[in-house]
Every structure is written in structure tokens, then in C-alpha cells.
């Protein structure tokens, strides 16, 4: 079943099309990463799906609920907007009480405190939001998105501006929630984070989705060669000649290090054959490192 499906979803401001006829489907239970430069249209897309912005044209469904069924959608989703402030006069706990009442979620005080503890706000339960740091506000934003135990969680830049420990904590929360079957729709500028967490990724640029797929599919689309760094024992000139002749049949690219102890080959998926060649010619291999393109490299290739 699809957790979310959009049909030609479009948003224009005057003559500028920010989101351009996007057809996107997100499978239930996946962590979906949404990537793009600033101004690519990611937040506008999320804001349309979550009911904050009206689409110019097109429509969408969330868990089978059409866009017009806002109440059903609100009960099923949790949203961390891209940038938000909180009520200065409310404590962290007051916020959760207020938001849970708005959603008609019958949470006890202890349950709300447990959510705050889970996001790392155990020391700020009774602290007013006006005294919160940016990172604390981000954590509270995640906490409020969790109060209705959503089936789909929209996280817009959940780790931007938070310290390394908090990032790890947020990652573990995402993993934990995803393990329970919640679909997570995540936007981030941190490409490593998306690569680490997401099952499927869409890359958006100038309002359109340029590429979509899992990491393997994206790598296959963007890099025809897999580079293997092989560290081996020192070899003689005769062995080096044999190596050149032998590996030329298996690879298009062969670079031999000056010290004759490391070679770089483009294997195109023929890693076992390359490895076997070394074994057959009795050349000890100390290290074999497969250098696949990272999401960052793929992302940069799109620019």
C-alpha cells in the first residue's frame, strides 16, 4: 500500500513554478529521503502535503485519504515544519499538552513526559520555550510530531542546527519509529544522513524530481564504474607487466601506483574476477577497497 501519492502536484507563485507537476509515491513503512538544494521546492512540497499551503493544481492522497479529508490526514500524520518557534510562555510539557488536546489525543502527563525524555528534553520539561536553544526547539518540534503516534512522519530538516549527540539521538529515534512501521518522509541537507537512514531517495531540483530510487539504483544511474583500490605486496617489473596484460581484459581503467604497491582498477562489477586474478598469480592482497559514489557525489553530478 502507498503511504502517500501525489498527482501532478503543482505550486506557482506568480510566474514562478516552485513545485512542478510532481507525481510521487511513497511506500508504507519506508524512510523516504527528499533531497534538493535550497529553493528546490522541498519544503513547499511538504507544506502542501501537510495542509499548510494550497496546491495551485494537482492533488494527493495520504493513506488513501484524499487531500480534502484534512481531519483524517491530520490524525494520521506528524509534522516537524522546516522552521518554527514555540510559545514563549509555554513550557515543553505545556506545548505537548496543548497540541495533544488539539488532536484529541488522550495522553496522560506521564506519557507526555516520556516523549520529552525520549527526544532528550528530560531536563527541560518545565522550562519555558523562551529559554530554549535552537537545538532544544528542534527536539521539541520532533516531540510534538510524535504525540499522535503518526502513521506518517514528515520531518523537514530534523537535524539542522543541532549538535552531534543530538543528531545521533534523532537518528536513533527515526530508526526506532521506522522499525514500528511508521513511514518517514525526511528532507535534509545532510547527504550522509539521508544515505544512512533512507530506503528510497528522490532528488528535487527547480521544482521537479530529477532522480528517484534507492541508493543502488541511483549509483547505477550515475556511475558506470566502480573503482577498486587494491593494496598488494611489492611486485617485480615482470609481474607488473603480467598484471597490466591480465587486468586489461577485465577493466577499462588501470592505474599503478609509483611504489608498485597499490593499483586502482575500474571493475564494473567484476570484483570477484579481479580478486581471483591476484590469487592465481600469487600476489598477496593486503586491502581491497570498493569506492562507490556517495550520495553527495551523485547529488553534485546533478548540479
Amino acid at each position, binding site marked *: 500500500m502507498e503511504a502517500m501519492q501525489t498527482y501532478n502536484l503543482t505550486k506557482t507563485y506568480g510566474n514562478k513554478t516552485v513545485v512542478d507537476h510532481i507525481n510521487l509515491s511513497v511506500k508504507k513503512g519506508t524512510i523516504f529521503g527528499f533531497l534538493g538544494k535550497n529553493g528546490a521546492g522541498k519544503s513547499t512540497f511538504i*507544506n502542501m502535503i*501537510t*495542509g*499548510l*499551503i*494550497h496546491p495551485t493544481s494537482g492533488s494527493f492522497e495520504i493513506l488513501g485519504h484524499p487531500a480534502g479529508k*484534512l*481531519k483524517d490526514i*491530520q490524525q494520521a*500524520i506528524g*509534522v516537524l*515544519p522546516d*522552521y*518554527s*518557534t*514555540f*510559545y514563549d*510562555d509555554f513550557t515543553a510539557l505545556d506545548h505537548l499538552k*496543548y*497540541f495533544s*488536546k*488539539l*488532536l484529541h489525543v488522550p495522553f496522560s502527563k506521564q506519557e507526555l513526559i516520556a516523549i520529552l525524555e525520549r527526544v532528550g528534553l528530560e531536563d527541560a520539561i518545565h522550562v519555558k520555550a523562551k529559554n530554549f536553544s535552537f537545538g532544544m526547539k528542534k527536539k521539541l518540534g520532533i516531540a*510534538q510530531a510524535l504525540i499522535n503516534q503518526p502513521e506518517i512522519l514528515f520531518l523537514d530538516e530534523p537535524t539542522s542546527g543541532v549538535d552531534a549527540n543530538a543528531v545521533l539521538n534523532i537518528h536513533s529515534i527515526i530508526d526506532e519509529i521506522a522499525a514500528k512501521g511508521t513511514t518517514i518522509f525526511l528532507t535534509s541537507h545532510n547527504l550522509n544522513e539521508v544515505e544512512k537512514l533512507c530506503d528510497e531517495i528522490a532528488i528535487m531540483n527547480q521544482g521537479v524530481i530529477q532522480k528517484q530510487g534507492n541508493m543502488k539504483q541511483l549509483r547505477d544511474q550515475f556511475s558506470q564504474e566502480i573503482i577498486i583500490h587494491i593494496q598488494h605486496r611489492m611486485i617485480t617489473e615482470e609481474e607488473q607487466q603480467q598484471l597490466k596484460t591480465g587486468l586489461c581484459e577485465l577493466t577499462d581503467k588501470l592505474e599503478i601506483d609509483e611504489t608498485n604497491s597499490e593499483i586502482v582498477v575500474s571493475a564494473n562489477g567484476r570484483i570477484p574476477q579481479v580478486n581471483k586474478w591476484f590469487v592465481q598469480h600469487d600476489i598477496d592482497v593486503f586491502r581491497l577497497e570498493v569506492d562507490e559514489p556517495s550520495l553527495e557525489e551523485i547529488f553534485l553530478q546533478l548540479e
Partner: protein
Amino acid sequence: MFTIAFREFRSLFTSIRSILIIIVLFGVTVGAARLVRQFEEQLQELGLGQDAYAMGLMLLLILASPLFVTSIAHNVVNKEIADRTIRFLATKTTRNRIIFGKFIGHFLFWSICLTVALLLIVPFSKSFAILDLLQAIIFVSYFIGWTLFLSTSITKPALTMFLGITLSIALPILGLWSTGTDNWFIKIVGYLTPYFYYTQGDDSYYAYLVVIFPIIFILGSLLIFRKRDL
């Protein structure tokens, strides 16, 4: 809806500005009632009777309630938009409920303030002016609705503050002027203010017609807010 209303209501009672307004409201009401008691016989002769005790409150409301309401409610919606706290509300409840909740919160605040103000007169007048209370609440509702509409239509709180204060001064002047002029433009403006309806005599039911205005203002706010991108 009532969650938002209660939040508004509670925050109004804890704001310094609101507390100052409550002090002025209660102070003027009690002060005027004491003054009336000193001239009770003369006022009875003039036929003002028990109504004179609530006169101070009514006069204060007629002249200053636009300013009072505007000063505490000019940013009732657009502050949430500017601060982006609205995003938490709009992803959890409907926009209709946000607007109704905001109105109800302010309506309750003023209803309670006016009720208490009139209760403070009871020791002097020995009676509770229920019709005066009703009319006072309707009068203030006009300005709550109007301020809500302004705050929904204009996204910048500083601009609604400026416009609110300007119109709060202009409206009573235009409204009262319209009751004694033949200028057709001022007369038309007068029909759009509550002042025309509140100056049609004690026994007229015109004052109750003013209730239509807050309804129009709320409907206008809903129309705008439902279409607004947050």
C-alpha cells in the same frame, strides 16, 4: 476550538496590557458609580434612575473599547503566522476551528471583564443591569470581530497595530459624527459602525442588530484564512 479559545483566554489574563485594561475598566466603573451615588437624587429627577450607574462603563466602552480591544487583539492571528506557531496549529486542527477559537477566547475574556465590572456596581445600584451587560458585550464583540478580520487580512503585526490604533481613534469620531450630520458619506460610514445603532434611543432594539457585524467579520476572516498559505 475550545482548546484554542481557552489558551487565548488564559493568555489574556496573564498579559500586562490586559491587566492594565481590566484595572482601568474596573476603576472607571466603580469611580463613576460612586460619583453617580453622590448625585443620585438629581439624576433620578432627570429620569436616568438606575441606568446612571452603568453609564460610566458604557461611556468608557463607547469611547475606548476599540482601542482596548485593538491593543490586545491586533495580532491575534498574524502573530502566529509571523512566528510560524500557526504551523503547529494548522497541522493539528482545522482553520475554521482556529478562527472560532480565537474569537471565542477574546469574547469570553471581555464578557467576563464586563460582567465583573457590572457586578462591582451592584453595591451602589442594588441591581444587576443585565440588558446593559448584553449591549456592552455586543458592542465589544463588534470590535473583537473587526480586529480578528484585520489580523487575518494583514500578515504584519506592526501594520495591524498601526491600522488598529488609527481606526480605533477614527471609528468613534466618525461613528458619533454620523449621528449628527447630513453628509451622506459620513452617514454611510456611520451605518457600518455600532455607534449609529447605539444612539437610537434606550428602548430601541437597534443595538442588538450590531450582532450581525461580528458574524460578518468572522465569516470574512474564515474566508481569507482558509485560502491563506501558512
